[in-house]
């Protein structure tokens, strides 16, 4: 009997006939029983709704509409002002939930589709997926915590991830259906669906990153080498290729071509955004030219000879912008093709000729294996042509442009940060470019200013010219991305994290839409790293953090250990890699606390919410992906602080510390309902300035299960950071005091005096004990839970 197996087969005597067997149905081996299956493997929309309702009761959505109308069907436009209902019956409040779900749909789809796309690329580039093991070595046994938690699957090869993506894809479609007119009508159920989407997003991120680590042999673990970061690191003596986006396979092919042809001395490769991060995991020849915020400026500075884009967060006008500086663009992903010809079947030299001659501004090459040769040859051949012209404004041209400015203010009201560009121009016209140069960093590089300038001043270019000396010196360092957190690291930090002696995990993640420039992200990371928090960075915030140096000329990645431990500041990786931060929290529950994670989402999220002091900080969140990422973190019990522009996401999740009834949990030992105080107080909250963000982030690391030692450390940081950044004690610090043991020893007397004087608490001054006052429950064996079903012995 013939044993069928997947593959491509020739049929004897039949020329040109091949049979491809993709998957053998009905013969699949039952999965190894590696752990008992929990209650919710592959949860569908209603399955975790009960957990969402627990969260949404304590943290109901706060809506800030960006638009008071609905224009999604032809019965509209509907005026929903004042929470009126539209022609279909939807209220403005529900409409906000609907738009949030739509944003999460786009974000989740971006990550999941990227992952699925990469499976296709990997199969094409590396061969059969079931021959690529998911084996991260002896330091990692729990290889895919989110996959195990959500789907119940323990993936052994990259092929096993196909089932994970199939689960995600079906759910995305089901959730997308809920967006249609005449479907969901409840804001809270829209939010539950957004949570479901966020959870799928986290799963898609993990699967995508695992796939690329396994297929491309990305290194993992601590002590990674340092990489160059910043616009000033691009070596314009060489032909320069810039890769932009989030899908690294085409960029890996460029790296291969450069290295296979020994062209490192002739061709430089830099990246923007996550393609930079991921391709630098493949090859350290890749420099991290910039985060998203500098994208337009890297292009318009004319530094690069060939641009290769894949997907996500790439400017929609990239062809027009690149043409301004004579740079051809290769589009290497079907999500983004800009009405250009697909040229995969053509002779590479013909494609190069067309691009170098300017016959076409760009081409589409969908096969990643076709990209390297074309990109390198284009960059090499066009370099001498492009370099004849200087792309930075000459002194004369700069003077002419800034003198043409009438300071009409159009650019300022077009600017997301309201930068007074006219003032910068005015001073520059008088010979002082310092203000305009300083505006370069606050600018997010959107380019809206140029479109509204009645004098047609190329404002992006004037700002680049003013800041050019700074740009040339923009040379920082970050560590190469390390990917998953080791199980052994979790064993080391599990107890200190849950006990609170490591005060928290801080995750600065996401985009570069900052309110006041890139320095803020360095300040955030440094503050928490210096205080012994574990700082896990991903994405654009990570790249920008590496731009700054201390007085000794060292970046945070050089002054802080590259370990997931106290005071570590680590590069976890790209957007999809931030799944490993979820994973670290899950692993604490699994490895440290021995909780079964298989198909057991709600219990683990409940564990994290009550015990693991982790908090995300998305200071420049911009994209729909950031929306779905935040929803994924929130459902897992991890709060996040976002920057002021994030009010435009329309929704935050806020607790009310003044409503005592919201902060009761069960003690799982006996079912007793106990008041634990507002910990964590919010799940998703907008901060206005970093002076506000930093103490708030420290506050959101407090958890119901903190030990007295841990609480006293967390409280110390919260009070100290308030004093440092806001100049005084926070007005709510007493809400986190359960007994005198929670007070830091060095300040105990002072704090007891304040509690007595300001809160009326009774203190026994002989023993320095609080006799009366605190309401918050704590017991050394306290087992807090928000889920009634987890009570072990019901109270009589």
């Amino acid at each position, binding site marked *: 009997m013939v044993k069928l197996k997947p593959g491509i087969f020739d049929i004897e005597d039949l020329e040109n006939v091949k049979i491809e067997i993709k998957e053998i149905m009905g013969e699949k081996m039952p999965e190894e029983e590696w752990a008992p299956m929990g209650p919710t493997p592959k949860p569908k929309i209603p399955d975790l709704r009960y957990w969402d309702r627990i969260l949404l009761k304590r943290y109901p959505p706060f809506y800030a509409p960006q638009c008071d109308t609905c224009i999604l069907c032809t019965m509209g436009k509907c005026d929903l*002002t*004042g929470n009126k209902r539209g022609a279909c019956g939807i209220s403005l409040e529900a409409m906000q939930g609907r738009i949030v779900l739509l944003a999460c749909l786009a974000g989740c789809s971006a990550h999941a589709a990227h992952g699925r796309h990469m499976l296709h690329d990997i199969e094409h580039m590396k061969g059969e997926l079931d021959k690529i093991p998911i084996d991260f070595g002896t330091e990692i046994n729990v290889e895919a915590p989110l996959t195990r938690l959500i789907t119940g699957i323990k993936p052994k090869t990259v092929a096993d991830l196909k089932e994970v993506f199939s689960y995600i894809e079906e759910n995305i479609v089901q959730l997308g259906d809920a967006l249609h007119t005449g479907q969901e009508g409840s804001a809270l159920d829209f939010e539950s669906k957004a949570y479901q989407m966020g959870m799928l997003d986290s799963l898609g991120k993990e699967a995508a990153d695992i796939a690329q680590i396994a297929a491309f042999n990305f290194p993992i673990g601590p002590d990674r080498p340092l990489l160059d970061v910043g616009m000033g690191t691009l070596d314009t003596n060489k032909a320069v290729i810039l890769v932009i986006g989030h899908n690294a396979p085409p960029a890996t092919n460029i790296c291969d071509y450069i290295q296979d042809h020994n062209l490192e001395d002739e061709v430089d490769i830099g990246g923007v955004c996550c393609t930079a991060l991921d391709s630098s995991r493949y090859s350290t020849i890749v420099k991290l030219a910039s985060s998203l915020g500098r994208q337009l400026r890297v292009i318009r500075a004319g530094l690069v000879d060939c641009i290769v884009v894949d997907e996500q967060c790439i400017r929609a006008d990239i062809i027009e912008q690149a043409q301004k500086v004579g740079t051809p663009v290769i589009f290497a992903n079907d999500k983004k093709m800009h009405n250009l010809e697909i040229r995969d079947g053509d002779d590479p030299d013909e494609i190069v000729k067309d691009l170098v001659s300017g016959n076409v501004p760009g081409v589409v090459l969908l096969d990643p294996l076709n990209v390297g040769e074309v990109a390198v040859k284009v960059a090499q051949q066009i370099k001498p042509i492009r370099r004849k012209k200087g792309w930075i404004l000459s002194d004369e041209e700069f003077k002419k442009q800034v003198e043409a400015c009438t300071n009409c203010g159009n650019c300022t009201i077009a600017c997301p940060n309201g930068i007074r560009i006219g003032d910068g121009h005015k001073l520059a016209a008088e010979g002082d470019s310092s203000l305009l140069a300083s505006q370069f960093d606050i600018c997010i590089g959107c380019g809206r200013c140029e479109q509204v300038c009645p004098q047609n001043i190329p404002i992006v270019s004037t700002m680049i010219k003013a800041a050019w000396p700074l740009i040339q010196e923009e040379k920082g360092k970050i560590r190469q991305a390390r990917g998953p957190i080791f199980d052994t690291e979790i064993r080391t930090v599990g107890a200190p994290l849950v006990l609170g002696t490591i005060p928290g995990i801080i995750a600065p993640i996401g985009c570069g839409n900052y309110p006041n420039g890139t320095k803020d992200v360095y300040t955030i990371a440094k503050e928490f790293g210096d205080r012994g928090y574990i700082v896990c960075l991903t994405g654009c915030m990570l790249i920008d953090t590496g731009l700054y140096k201390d007085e000794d000329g060292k970046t945070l990645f050089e002054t802080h250990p590259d370990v997931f431990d106290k005071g570590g500041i680590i590069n976890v990786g790209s957007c999809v890699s931030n799944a490993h931060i979820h994973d670290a929290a899950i692993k604490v529950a699994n490895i440290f606390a021995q909780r079964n994670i298989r198909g057991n989402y709600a219990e683990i999220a409940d564990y994290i919410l009550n015990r693991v002091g982790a908090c995300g900080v998305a200071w420049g969140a911009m994209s729909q992906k950031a929306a779905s990422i935040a929803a994924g973190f929130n459902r897992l019990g991890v709060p996040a602080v976002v920057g*002021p522009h994030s009010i435009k996401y329309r929704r*935050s999740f806020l607790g*009310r510390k003044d409503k005592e009834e919201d902060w009761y949990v069960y003690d799982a030992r006996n079912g007793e309902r106990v008041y634990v105080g507002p910990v964590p107080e919010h799940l998703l909250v907008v901060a206005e300035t970093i002076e506000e963000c930093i103490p708030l982030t420290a506050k959101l690391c407090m958890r119901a299960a903190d030990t007295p030692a841990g609480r006293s450390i967390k409280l110390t940081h919260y009070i100290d950071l308030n004093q440092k950044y*806001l100049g005084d004690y*926070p007005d709510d610090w007493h809400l986190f005091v359960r007994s005198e043991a929670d007070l830091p020893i060095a300040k105990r007397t002072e704090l007891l005096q304040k509690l007595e004087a300001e809160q009326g608490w009774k203190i026994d001054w002989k023993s320095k004990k609080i006799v009366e006052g605190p309401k918050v429950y704590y017991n050394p064996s306290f087992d807090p839970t928000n889920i009634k079903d987890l009570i072990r012995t019901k109270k009589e």
Partner: protein
Amino acid sequence: MAELKMLPFDAGNIPGPKMGRVTAPKIIGKMIKRAKKPLLICGSNIEEHGSIDKAIEIGKKGIPIAASGNAIVAFRNKGYMDNVKYVLLNDLANCLRDPEWKGLDGKGNYDTVIFIGSLYYLTSGILASLKNFVPHIKALAIDPYYQPNADMTFGDIWRKKDEYLAMLDEVIGEL
């Protein structure tokens, strides 16, 4: 008085059919005077345009001040903390929407909130929330910008600092 224009400081910030009414300073001053329980909300740009000195003058007229972002530091540096409290703007707005909220003084919610020194786009979002979901509160904006989500607002006057300060004086003159 300067020409008052309905031009949002973020050019694309056109929320819908109900847009804030550009209102003369004297009328805004009278609105504040008539309020049973007003609250002046000072944002992180309170030191721009000399707004903080005017905010302190308003505070001295007995109107409590909520300082968001790092505005509290500016008040402390000015030596004025009499009726100033730190707030997280997002948190404050969440409380404002609850008619039963006890307020910063424990005596009940407010009927009129006045924004000054705002981070424009953040406050615009907060005002949108108040406009659409908090009918029990009047929201006034006395920054040198047109705020389309406020009930009443100054117009676009951010390039004319002296005229703006004069408008604030008119408001204060009514208190």
